[in-house]
């Protein structure tokens, strides 16, 4: 017993449910292919800021205002050079279709400057509409508002730090206590949910909807500010309404400063992509890891997910590997070696572990470039330079060769490689 006879079939099977995997699945579905998306856990979108960076810095460390003009500064092996700028545009276009009005930045080819939650200024290509009023290049006065219990976002410091970085707008920062009764360790999502549901809270002037109670607490600090910046926690499904209610009460623009894990903008983005996958008819199976596969010469025939010892086969003609890098666990490592976790694709890395890292925590770190190496068709290569499998492509953080953290290009790499790998897989499967 337990021998499975019937595999679950599709034209394209994408492994990995992060930004690159979901983009691949959508791009493949657009070609008319039937698509299966396998993912193990929640994606790393919930860890990222929700900003879509394409290229923020050149290899020489210069800030980039026009990413497409700066592509020339990138080395030849860079993904962007390999696949060309049309693929980058395609990736952004797919993204824009998925997010619609909820993101801004698509009106220009230039990067925008967005404040970060530790008070630095960051170049990015697409930003949530929830963040749009916060651009650092805007000159209108800003009030940053933080919360006593939320130590990650220190509004007075954010304000001072942005000023010191030359942000042209006058800024102030104030820390208030969030409406409602909370303990010091109440989770961030409690406040997010309360704002989403516009729960009633008790205040000194009686019961009030929490959005109004919050606006009232901000109001007394407003002075001449024309914009109010809050940490990114203004609701999930109803975020636009939360912002609208605050803006209407305060009579000024309200924006969110994106924060790192748990990232509410990332969670919203994940939902938008999942909805798009449903609309595109992509079939999803989530919760079990891909642990094995069957290959027939240079073609992968099927992969198997595992649930505590029982396994489920998924058959497809084309596969996309989008399992992520060291954080998403597409890469495994131990004291001696680094491996790709599903197909054991070749991952170039120094044998000597002391060469995996450098001494300065910020600058050049070889481990940040670990990943599979691919050709222009995004097929992972073995150590002799030929494709590992004829029907396997890779996308997203599993790709090696570039330190996307230093050049601020992680999302751009995922969208670009995702759309290309997905489209090629879809076309080849027909």
């Amino acid at each position, binding site marked *: 017993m337990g021998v499975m006879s019937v595999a679950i079939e599709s034209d394209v099977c994408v492994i990995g449910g992060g930004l690159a995997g979901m983009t691949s699945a959508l791009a493949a579905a657009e070609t008319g292919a039937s698509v299966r998306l396998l993912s193990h856990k929640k994606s790393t979108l919930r*860890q990222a800021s929700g900003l879509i960076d394409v290229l923020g810095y050149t290899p020489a460390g210069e800030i980039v205002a026009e990413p497409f003009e700066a592509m020339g500064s990138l080395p030849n092996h860079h993904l962007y050079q390999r696949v060309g700028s049309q693929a980058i545009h395609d990736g952004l276009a797919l993204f824009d279709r998925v997010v619609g009005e909820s993101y801004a930045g698509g009106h220009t080819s230039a990067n925008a400057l967005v404040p970060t939650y530790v008070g630095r200024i960051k170049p990015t290509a697409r930003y949530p509409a929830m963040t749009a009023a916060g651009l650092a290049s805007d000159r209108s006065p800003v009030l940053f508002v933080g919360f006593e219990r939320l130590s990650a976002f220190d509004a007075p410091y954010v304000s001072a730090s942005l000023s010191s970085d030359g942000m042209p707008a006058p800024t102030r920062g104030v820390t208030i206590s969030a409406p409602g009764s909370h303990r010091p360790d109440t989770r961030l999502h409690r406040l997010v949910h309360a704002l989403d549901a516009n729960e009633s809270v008790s205040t000194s002037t009686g019961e009030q909807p929490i959005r109004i109670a919050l606006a009232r607490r901000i109001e007394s600090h407003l002075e001449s500010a024309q914009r109010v910046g809050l940490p990114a926690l203004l609701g999930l499904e109803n975020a636009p309404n939360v912002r609208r209610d605050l803006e209407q009460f305060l009579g000024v623009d309200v924006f969110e400063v994106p924060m790192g894990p*748990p990232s509410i903008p990332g*969670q919203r983005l994940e939902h938008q992509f999942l909805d798009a996958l449903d609309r595109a008819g992509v079939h999803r199976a989530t919760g079990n890891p891909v642990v094995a596969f069957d290959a027939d010469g240079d073609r992968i025939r099927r992969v198997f997910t595992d649930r505590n010892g029982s396994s489920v086969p998924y058959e497809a003609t084309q596969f996309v590997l989008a399992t992520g890098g060291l954080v998403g666990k597409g890469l495994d490592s131990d004291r001696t070696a680094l491996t790709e976790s599903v197909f054991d694709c070749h991952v170039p890395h120094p044998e000597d572990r002391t060469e995996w890292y450098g001494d300065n925590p910020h600058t050049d770190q070889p481990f940040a470039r670990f990943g599979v190496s691919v050709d222009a068709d995004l097929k992972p290569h073995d150590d002799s330079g030929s494709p590992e499998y004829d029907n396997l492509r890779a996308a997203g953080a599993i790709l090696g060769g570039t330190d996307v953290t230093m050049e601020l290009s992680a999302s751009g790499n995922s969208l670009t490689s995702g759309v290309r790998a997905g489209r090629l897989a879809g076309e080849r499967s027909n």
Partner: protein
Amino acid sequence: MSDTEDTPSFDPVTVFESTEQDLRSGSDDCYKCSTCDSVCPVASVDSSFPGPKFQGPEQWRLTRKEDTEIDDSIMGCSNCMRCDGACPSSVPLSQMHNTARGAYVENQRFVRSALAALRSGELRRGASIVRDGVSDLRERIRNRLLANYYTAGRFASKLPRVANAFTNFGPTRWLLERVLGITSERSFPSFATQTFREWWTERGGAQLENPDKRVAYFHGCYANYNTPAVGKAMVRVFESFGYEVLVPQQRCSGTPMFANGRLDDAKRHAETNVESLAEAIADGADVIASCTSCSMALRQEYPELFDLDGIDSVGENTYEALEYLRLNEDLEAALAETAGDAEEFAYHAPCHARNQGLDRQAVELFSDVDGVTIEDVGDSCSGISGTYGWKAEKYDYSMAIGDTMFAEMEAAAGEQGMTECPTCAMQMSHGTGYSITHPLELLADILIEEQSASSNG
């Protein structure tokens, strides 16, 4: 351990006495991303709940062997296990919660420690232990009652009509809330006049024998005492595919016991289940459950929490009913030839189905059936989490969690609901007034009517 013979100059360190399980190494996997907190339904409505990251890897990592006290916030966890499915780093979160909860409940047994304190002359400490213990007593009795639905069901099924009248009788409910803290907002599920097992015996057991296709049905408590229609549908569907169905001896899967920290009770029941299911597996059967919490318990919690002969084999050979058919039969082809009855369903995937990777299967399967419209109402938790929503102090949280699902159900085209989980079904029905169908019931309707129709024609 005989380490007290000599040198009493320093005391032996106690080994995690109450649980015998040291899960600190599970914190090795945690890189602190808080994704677990971001999916926790309780943390988003209950300001006093510090979330799964604290309850799991952080609390365990901060623990030393001599620490016996578990923070009482562990009892805020509803055991929905969504954190397990979320963690990108595979921290054994629910195992940590279950073990800590078990230790917490064990610590609530105050009589022994009070006596020990009194014997050693610590009168004040003894008195305070008794005081705290008594104040917890009501909660403990209530939780024990809720956890042992199996026993309640067994008694109620003897006289189902009386039980139904009594349990939903106003004064009874008032008393249950006042005395035990069981919310009076909900109606108790009604007990069937004939249990599934009674029906099974009456029909003479399996209708066909097939040593090559044999399944052992783990019906659990609910399909036995309350919704035998689900169990009957399972039998009809599997027999229609030529399976020999076994209905082995069984007790509660343990799910409500885990959620209430009653690991000893759960283990007692697990011993019976594992023994009889392992025997069925040895006879060539795979184990099929229709309740996703039961299959979750057999697959994941059993091997994580207990060390019993055959327990791994039970975990590896257990499947949810639809999952099994899909893997072993060409279910899609069978369904392609059928047609439903112009029915529209708002489908909710139970958290425990989600954790087994089954959250989309019903939607995928039925969406291609002519005449059936099935709409996924999203990935929120229903909020009831088994016994959680029955506790008076949790009722409001339970409903606040459920609000998202209720709204999605109302927005969906269908005026009836569908889910695999009996308590999610209660919550769906409680929040919307819809009647709730199990996917097996729909499958039986479609397939078997179709088959009988085609054999007639």
